[in-house]
């Protein structure tokens, strides 16, 4: 369990081989009078499969948006493999593949067009894009739907095509906000396999999720966020401390209410 220092250092972590894939220092954001993220510091080691868990409204999406350059933080810094996201955004973004949650896609494109578009926007050449788009559509089971407009896709298919747009440029770090929402079990298993393979070959994955069981089975590291604060971070085994991650999470976050009040619901 490596708790980062409380005071943010002013110099970026050196781009040494052991440098973290993502280093976050003192990251904070407030919306009007509500503090969404309260000065979080966190290291995501290179080659880790990092789970980010927290209750609804904990600040997960806000933190990930700031880490990926979508939302300007009020305070703090973020480095991706030693590149500062907010002073050199173009270089940092080239290293990252991002699946943002709750955003639309350019859904009047067909699936193949959308993945191609994502590749070309990254400045890749046409042949590489075409080959990789074909591979991604095949592996994600979207080959039959490749010629259909994304607006006609189901929720799960939409999630998968969005994932394809995040993968096409072979990023060193993947940041996925709720990648398994609305995805059927078979596709979820496929996606997990892709991600595990990606991590096994040197990539780093950050996923946010509500499903503790999934994070416990899939991730090597986990961070628990609630109310904009980082409650715990480290290896999954270190954080759960011998219990199930779900029990540990509930203990950390609190707020469990007794169901005794609903005695009238007992039908017998």
């Amino acid at each position, binding site marked *: 369990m490596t708790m980062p220092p409380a005071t943010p250092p002013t110099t970026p972590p050196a781009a040494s081989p052991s440098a973290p894939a993502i280093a976050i220092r003192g990251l904070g954001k407030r919306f009007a009078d509500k503090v969404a993220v309260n000065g979080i510091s966190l290291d995501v080691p290179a080659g880790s499969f990092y789970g980010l868990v927290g209750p609804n409204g904990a600040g997960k999406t806000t933190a990930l948006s700031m880490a990926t350059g979508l939302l300007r933080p009020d305070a703090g810094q973020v480095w991706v493999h030693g590149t500062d996201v907010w002073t050199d955004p173009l270089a940092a*973004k080239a290293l990252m593949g991002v699946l943002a949650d709750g*955003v*639309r896609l350019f*859904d009047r494109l067909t699936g193949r067009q959308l993945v*191609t578009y994502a590749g*070309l*926007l990254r400045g890749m050449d046409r042949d590489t894009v075409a080959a990789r788009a074909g591979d991604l559509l095949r592996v994600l089971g979207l080959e039959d739907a490749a010629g259909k407009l994304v607006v006609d896709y189901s929720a799960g298919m939409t999630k998968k095509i969005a994932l394809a747009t995040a993968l096409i440029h072979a990023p060193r770090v993947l940041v996925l906000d709720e990648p398994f929402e609305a995805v059927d079990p078979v596709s979820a298993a496929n996606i997990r396999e892709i991600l595990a393979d990606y991590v096994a070959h040197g990539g780093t994955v950050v996923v946010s999720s509500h499903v503790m069981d999934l994070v416990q089975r899939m991730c090597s590291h986990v961070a628990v966020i609630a109310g904009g604060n980082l409650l715990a971070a480290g290896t999954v085994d270190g954080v759960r401390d011998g219990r199930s991650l779900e029990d540990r999470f509930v203990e950390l976050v609190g707020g469990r209410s007794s169901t005794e009040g609903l005695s009238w619901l007992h039908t017998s």
Partner: protein
Amino acid sequence: MVAHLLKLKATLLRNGFRRSPWQLVGVVLGGLYGLSVVALLCAGLFYLGGTDPAFAGTVLVLAASAAVLGWALIPVLATGVDLTLDPARFTTFTVKPWELVAGLLLSGFIGVPGAVTLLLFAGQALAWRQAPAAAVLAVPCGVLAAVLCLALARLTTTAASALTASRRFRDVAGVLLIVPLVMLGPVLTLVSEGFGDAMAWLPRVAAGLGWTPLGSFAAVPADVAAGAWGTAAARFALSLAYLAAVVVLWKRALEQALETPPQGPRGGRATGGLGPFARFPATPWGAVAARCLVYWRRDPRYAVAIIMVPLLPVMMWIGSTQTGSTAILLWLGPIVAILLAFSISADVSYDSTAFALHATSGVRGVHDRLGRVVACAVFALPAVLAAAVLPPVLLGEVRLLPGVVGLSLGALAAGFGVASVASARFTYAVPQPGDSPFKNPPGAGMRMVVVQLATMSVMGLLLLPPAGLLVAQLVTGNAAFGWAGLGVGPVLGAVLLAAGLRLGGRWFDARVPELMQATVLNK
């Protein structure tokens, strides 16, 4: 139960205000507008009461028929019926069908359009103030006709829901609706010229409509005023039968819809290739251009700008027949140019949150700007050239050709430059992807008007030099001014375009996160 549903609708309306004060402002403004319409038309009805009863009857039947037809058609094509109380949400409750029908129907009066219709239809009594019996009867007839309007709207939308569930239908209908909207004014001027003859055949049309569901309720008081009590009774019975038939048909359609909920859009037609992505250069700006071109074809919000292009000359031609001077047609080129260039000035707003892909990909601002300009230029350039060349040639004013073409090309390029800056800096709420192009989000008004006016004014100011040269040629007749304009326009346009792409690109680079958050807020 019916009272419950009415209360539910009122509560939903009130809670909407709590969520967004702007919605309250919108409803208050809409209500005031509605009240002023009611006041104005009631004054008209009162005045009508002083005229010949036969004339009053004709006017009322025609107006009522138009209103009923509007209620039957407009919700299907444009707005959709107010789904605050969506019948589908009541499937899991045990509401008796007739109570649901009555509740949904009457809840339509809680809202500006329904209330205005009710007041105006009942207000027909004012037009019969000289025939007390007709006036008394006009009130229940008007109220029943208003119920008929709401029932017809429900019937047509429910019946067409299978059709309107198809995205393609909604896209096409939404765009085509602009044709009658835009052409209404010019056509009315044409019609009003023939108004003298119209008084010969309109009474016959009204007499026919008086026996159809559209005008039958409105024709009953006219019969009474004319003393034809037998006809009035027959017509009233027929009207009630129409109303009953519409309600029963709607109830049946509603039950069917509730028992077998729509399956949702079935997968659209598959298209194989990459389309424009294969034809544009494999670069970030080429990709943006290809994507935008796909959107120009498939997104109805863009199609509205395109469909205006052929409509403009028609409108201007009708306008010129009024004034007798065709000179205004010479300005078609520059006007089309500014219209098309302006249409990309809200591009980032139109992307909505899909802009996240640009933001996370690290697209450079100048590439983003350039791609959007290129996509629009692909069809804007030929369209503007045609609009610039054809009018002078067809009007036999070839000597004006160089100046007009110069000004038009300059307007297009300069307009692109201004739009490239505007869309990187001044976002505003626009209809969301998939929404009707005419559905402006609540609270968008002020900022949108200011930004659009400012953008247009800047375009106009920058174009003063070539426009001045064209005017100089028109005034002096010296062709040298026109040739100068042919040089000045494109050069000035090119400079402004380059400057706009640079400045817009720089602002874009600096403001990607802010642009992204603006699209999130506009949702």
